[in-house]
Every structure is written in C-alpha cells, then in structure tokens.
C-alpha cells in the first residue's frame, strides 16, 4: 500500500483506529486519552469518505507510534502545545457554524440554527510532528446587526476564516468586505483563510474556484472549498491552518 508522505499527517483517524484495535475495556486507559478524549467521541457518517479522509485513513500506520507520541507529549514543551484563537466570519447562512460543528463534533445538522452573537467552541488537533494545536474557535453570527461587534471577536485572533457560499455571489462579496476589514483592523500577521463552503452544491455554483483562488492569492490567503455536509476538506482546512501558524520553535 502506498502511503503518501504528508508533512503534517494528522493522527486523528490513526488514533480512532488505535482506539478500536488496541484499547480494550479493563485495560488501563492510555494517558493520552484524557487529552485527546475528543477523538473517541468523533462520529463519522458511514459511507462518506472524502478524498481528504482517504489520506487520513492511510496514515493509520502511525498507530504504532502512539506510545511514542504519548511520551513525547508528556514531556512536551510549550512550543509543542499551541493555543490558537480562531474567528470565523462571513455572511449569514454560509455555513460557518456547520463547518465548526463538523470539525469539533463530527456532526452535520441540516436545520439552520441562527447563531446569536458568537458561540465559543474548542478543538484540539494532534499533528504528526507531535504538536498539539488547540483551536479556540469564535463562531460569529453573520447577521448585519452583529457586524459592528465583530472586532470584539477578531481582536487578538491568530487565525481568521472567512467563509462564503459557492452558490451565492453576494456572500463572496461579503467575504471580500471581511477580508478588507481584517486587513485594516486585525492583528498584523493574522493567518487568513478563504473558504468556499457548500461545495457539494456544485451544480448551483455561482462563484468559480478560479476567481476565488485568484482573490485569495492576491490577498495572501489560503483558499479551500469545503462541504460541511459531506465533511469534504473540513479537516484539511484546519490542518492547513495549523501548518501556517507561526512556530516559535522552528
């Protein structure tokens, strides 16, 4: 089996598999389970395997290194534990909350629940280089009435994820508004990602990938198209963000 060498291969799925194969009731719980306990609560809709997930699944060979990871972590310096404030911005209804809930809980709820103010969630990613990234995510409301309050949430953020809906040109315009606002007011050096969500609705596409990509490049952003519904590229998005984070150790 060919195993693609991904520099920041995520151990997410690996740990999932390790859990099913190695961890049996009655045995002492591995130490890392408390820190990475969320991994065991992840639920993945059966039958939905995105290309990204395929890559992740292949990384299961890392399961053999779990104990190593564990010991490394217990000795980890602070440079191996990164806490990141991440803010999601974008028009209402583009799927910001869905992206977060897919990433944090592995869930997708098609009924729209309008976010009020901002919700706070956190999720930890274990990277292959044994770095633990803890995302503290501010999922902001997209409604106009909250626009003036956005600085409250993006102030001090290390990462801003600007989301639009690929089926709506209007939301892409709104995304550009947010990018401009962040360039003016956010902390310098903020990592910005442009995300075209609802990629599963490609037959209704109104914003071409090319346009978005060009816009992102011009503004020094990372660009990706995701689908919170199918989970496509969701983990990829956060891995890529983690990859771009400034590291004090490196």
């Amino acid at each position, binding site marked *: 089996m060919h195993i693609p060498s991904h520099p920041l291969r995520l151990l997410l799925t690996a740990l999932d598999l390790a859990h099913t194969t190695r961890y049996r009731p009655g045995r002492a719980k591995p130490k890392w389970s408390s820190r990475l306990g969320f991994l065991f609560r992840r639920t993945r809709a059966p039958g939905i395997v995105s290309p990204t997930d395929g890559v992740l699944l292949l990384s299961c060979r890392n399961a053999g290194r779990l104990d190593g990871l564990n010991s490394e972590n217990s000795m980890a310096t602070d440079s191996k534990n990164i806490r990141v404030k991440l803010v999601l911005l974008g028009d*209402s209804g583009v799927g910001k*909350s869905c992206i977060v*809930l897919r990433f944090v809980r592995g869930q997708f709820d098609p*009924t729209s*629940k*309008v*976010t*009020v*103010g*901002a*919700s*706070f*969630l956190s999720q930890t990613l274990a990277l292959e280089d044994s770095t633990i990234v803890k995302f503290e995510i501010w*999922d902001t*409301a997209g*409604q*106009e*009435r*909250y626009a003036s*309050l956005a600085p*409250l949430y993006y102030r001090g953020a290390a990462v801003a994820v600007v989301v639009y809906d690929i089926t709506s040109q209007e939301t892409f315009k709104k995304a550009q508004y947010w990018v401009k606002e962040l360039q003016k007011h956010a902390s310098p050096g903020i990592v910005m990602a442009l995300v075209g969500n609802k990629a599963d609705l490609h037959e209704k596409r109104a914003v071409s990938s090319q346009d978005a990509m060009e816009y992102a490049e011009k503004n020094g952003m990372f660009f990706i198209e995701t689908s919170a519904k199918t989970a496509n590229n969701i983990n990829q998005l956060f891995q890529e963000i983690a990859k771009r984070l400034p590291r004090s150790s490196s």
Partner: protein
Amino acid sequence: MDSDDSVTDPNPHHPDPSLDAEPATVEQMGSLTLGEAGDAAGAERPVGNGFLPADFYAAAGEIEVVEEGSPVSGDLAGPSSLGGPGACRERSGRGDALPSPSSSGYAGERGSSGGSSEIEEADDRETMLDDWSRGKRHPDEDDGSVSWRKRKKHFFILSNSGKPIYSRYGDEHKLAGFSATLQAIISFVENSGDRLKFIRAGKHQVVFLVKVPIYLVCISCTEEPYEALKRQLELIYGQMLLILTKSVNRCFEKNPKYDMTPLLRGTDAVFSSLIHAFSWFVFSNPKPKALVIWNPATFLNAYTCLPLSYSTRQAASAILQDVADSGVLFALLMCKNKVVSLVGTQKASLHPDDMLLLSNFIMSSESFRTSESFSPICLPRYNPMVFLYAYVHFLDVDTYLTLLTTSSDSFYHLKDCRIRIETVLVKSNVLSEVQRSMLDGGLRVEDLPLESSLRSRSLTTPELSSSQSGIGGPSGLWHFMYRSIYLDQYVSSEFSSPISSSSQQKRLFRAYQRLYASMHDNGTGPHKTQFRRDEDFVLLCWITQDFELYAAFDPLSDKALAIKTCNRVCQWVRDLENEIFLFGASPFSW
C-alpha cells in the same frame, strides 16, 4: 364600595342575538366578605376611548375598508371572502351572526369562546412545527392572500415612514403597501395633534402603539382587552430593543426611509415564541411538542420561580452571589421560564419584563443550546440604550445559566465563573433537585389543606379529603394564581382535572387576562375585589397591598365557600413561601 365601579361588560347593549348566556354576575367586595351585588351592566365604556371625535368611531366601517382595501394590494378578492369580521366569524363557526361594529366585550367572548378557541387552536397546531423549523410562518403570504386575511392575530412593526420591519405572517417586503396604509392611519390622527389607541371594526380590534420612530400594530379578533393587546405590543417592542437597543432610532434620524428588516434577520423564532406565550402555551424546546405551559408573566408583570426547598435555592444563590461579587452584573439560573435563582450586584435589579424577554430570547434561539455563547443583549427596562454582554450556557436540556456583564472582554472570566458554578451545582445536587422539581410540577389545588390548623410545610401533602378528587380542589377550586407585589413574583397552580383540556385552559387564560385588565383599569379602578360568575367559571380576584390573588372555581361554586377557600389559598401560599418564592433578590426599584 361603589357598584358603578364594577368592571363588567363594557357594552351592555349587546346586539349579538346568538347570545343566550346569563349576564355575568359582578360584585364588589370591600374585603373578602360577601358584598352587595353590583349592577351587572356596570359603567359603559365607550367603544373608542374618547380621544377622537364621535364621528371617527362611527367611521369604523370605513377604516376597515381602508385597511382591507389597501390601494397597493391590487388582487383583492371579493369583500365577503376577505379577512374582515365575516371571515372571522365563519372560521369560528358562527357565520350566522351579523357583523356588528360593537360586538365586543366580555359577554360576547363568552358566547363564542367555545367555537372560536377550537378553531384557533387547530390553526396554531397546524403551523406549530413550521415556527421552529423555519422561524417564519407562511412567508409566502401577503395582504392579498385569503389565508393571511383570515389569521386571527397579526402583529406588525413598522417605521414612521411606513416601512415594514416585522410581520407575524407573510413577507415584510410584500406587505409594504399594507404598512404604508397603517402608517397613513396613524399619521392622519397624529397630524391633528391626537393619538390613536385603537380602532374597533366588527370583531376586529386594531391596536396601535407609537414609539417614535417605530410604530407597532396588532390586528386581532381574539377579543382580548385593549390593555392586554397593548401590553403585548409593549413586550414585542421590548423584544426588539433586547436585540437591537434603542439606538436603532439613530438610523432613522439619518435616513427616515431606512429599511430595518435586515437588522432583525433570523429573529422570527424569537418573536413567534413570544407571541405564543401571549396566548396560552409556550414551546417546550427543542422538542417540537406544544406543552401547555402558560406564561401569565406576559400580563402579570411578575416572574415565577421553580419550587425548590429553601436550602437548595440557598445553595444556588450562594454560588451565584459569589460570582456576582466578581464583576458580574446579574447571574441568573433558570429552568425553562422559571427562575431557580437570581443574583444582582449592588442595587441593580432585574425587571420581570426583562427576565421574560431574556428567557424567551434564549429559549427560542437554538444556537444557545449547541455551545457556550457570548452575545450582546440589551435589557430594555434596565437601560434601553446600551448593550450588555450575556454569557449563556445550558447546563442541561432545560436549565441554563446567564451571566450578564457590562464588559465586552470578560468572556474568559465568565467562562471560569460558569465552570465554578456548574461544579458547585452538581456537587450540591442542585441540578438534580431542579430536574426533580420540573417533573413534580407546582402547587396542586387538590393539595390545599382543608383546615388552616393542618397547614402543610411540604409541597406534596396528600389530599386530605378524597371526596374532591377528580373534580379539582376543595369547594370547586380549579386553579389559582398568586402574585406577590413586593417580590414581583407569582405562583400559579397546576391545572386540575376539570381544566385539563387545552381549550378550557385557553379560556381560563383569557378570562384571567380580562380579569387582570378590569382590575387594573385606570378609568374605573383600581379595584380590590371582584367576584364574577359565567358559564365557564366562577372567578374571584382579590388585591391587597401585598398580593393579588386570581382564582377560578367551578361555575356552580358557592360564593361564601369560594371566599373562604381563597383565604385558605393565601394562607397556604404564605406557609410555602420559602419554597415557591425567591427571597433576597432586591425588589424592582426604579
């Protein structure tokens, strides 16, 4: 004791021929002793309120035409099929009755309550699920739709330039013409230096509330009293302020034609759940199941507490107080719409209306349940101009903690506070006690101690006399509400078996609403006592400096016994006050 003061059918010359019920018996009592029977007809209240010339009232029919035939809505159906009085009566199964501009008031409601409440109930049930899944009811409708015209109760918010802001039914933008008509009516009267309070057109009542630059209008054929509808409009306005603050007014200063609808986008569920609380049920979120939970807070100006043992509530209050001392303005622990504990710093106290609007906002916004939230919120009675910041976290399905602060960057502090509070609440079993109390329910009239010597100190005293079981409490007591004026709190009994059906409960809710309005009528009141008998209930209301008691009995109940029972209810409530009320929260003081 002035029998002319008695509050009764405002229109003694009731023209409705289908009414065969006896006139309501209205009596005045100086204290809770038997008084002389009052004049059943009572003082006549004008159909209008005297603010306008008489011919304005006579023109009610014309106003109605203006309302119906809004020049913008071109596709008018024939007048007979429109949502005027005719259509309404048709819906309530009384199509034979003639439209009459003055067929209103207590007796009229009584005659038709059976049929109409059932229809509306069905109407509400059918659309109940839509409310929560889509937020907006029937967004495809407009004032040209027959279905829209048949709706029993409309609420509108518009700007004083006639721009629609919110409509309970239908798409706001499609209702632009209709809004302009409403604005024209209001400004026509305003231009003559007067103020329009309401218009009665057949069975419909159009109630106006002017909060420049915002106008609020209710069009209803539910026969609720004007005061009740006006209060509902006040609450809707308060709900809007809670979301936006009064500083939205500035948008209109800059641009009178400002379109405010985008500012309220996504809040339809908040308004529809508030409007539901006006009638007779609120939703038990998140299950799409209507529970018959009243929210008398919508007219009582008070909040209610979850019954808990004194020590349990003390434990909750202690930890909340601890947190409040560390820079939290208000710490509020609630279970659905009932307060577990509430603590405020220094002199600040939370107005019952703010609590009602805040809990409605939190319970109807699904996103609060997914994770912890930090949101700007305005408490209109506290300060309508500024945003506070609310940290909201659901501790279980029904119980949620709200921490309010003035500082926009204290999220992490509030998060720590919540963790501390939650730990203590779990350790001291407060949360499990709260859940148990929710299951147990509140006071039951069947448990009312028979003799004052047998006072109980527990909520679960077994019924002493089994002869009353199945027919409510002693002496035909079916239900009561007790409001402590000093505490701003009320307690309401559970529904006994004679009023277990939802239509009966709705009838009772409406009866209480009218009773409340008549007791607090500025024109003829305030009153101390009222005894009223109609075909559904015997209603007794007793207001003192300390409390207000509203009680409903079997319609055949004996008056002297009912009065005796009310005295016992008051004693019972006083005996249990440590469990059913929250002490220590400073009373409303501004």
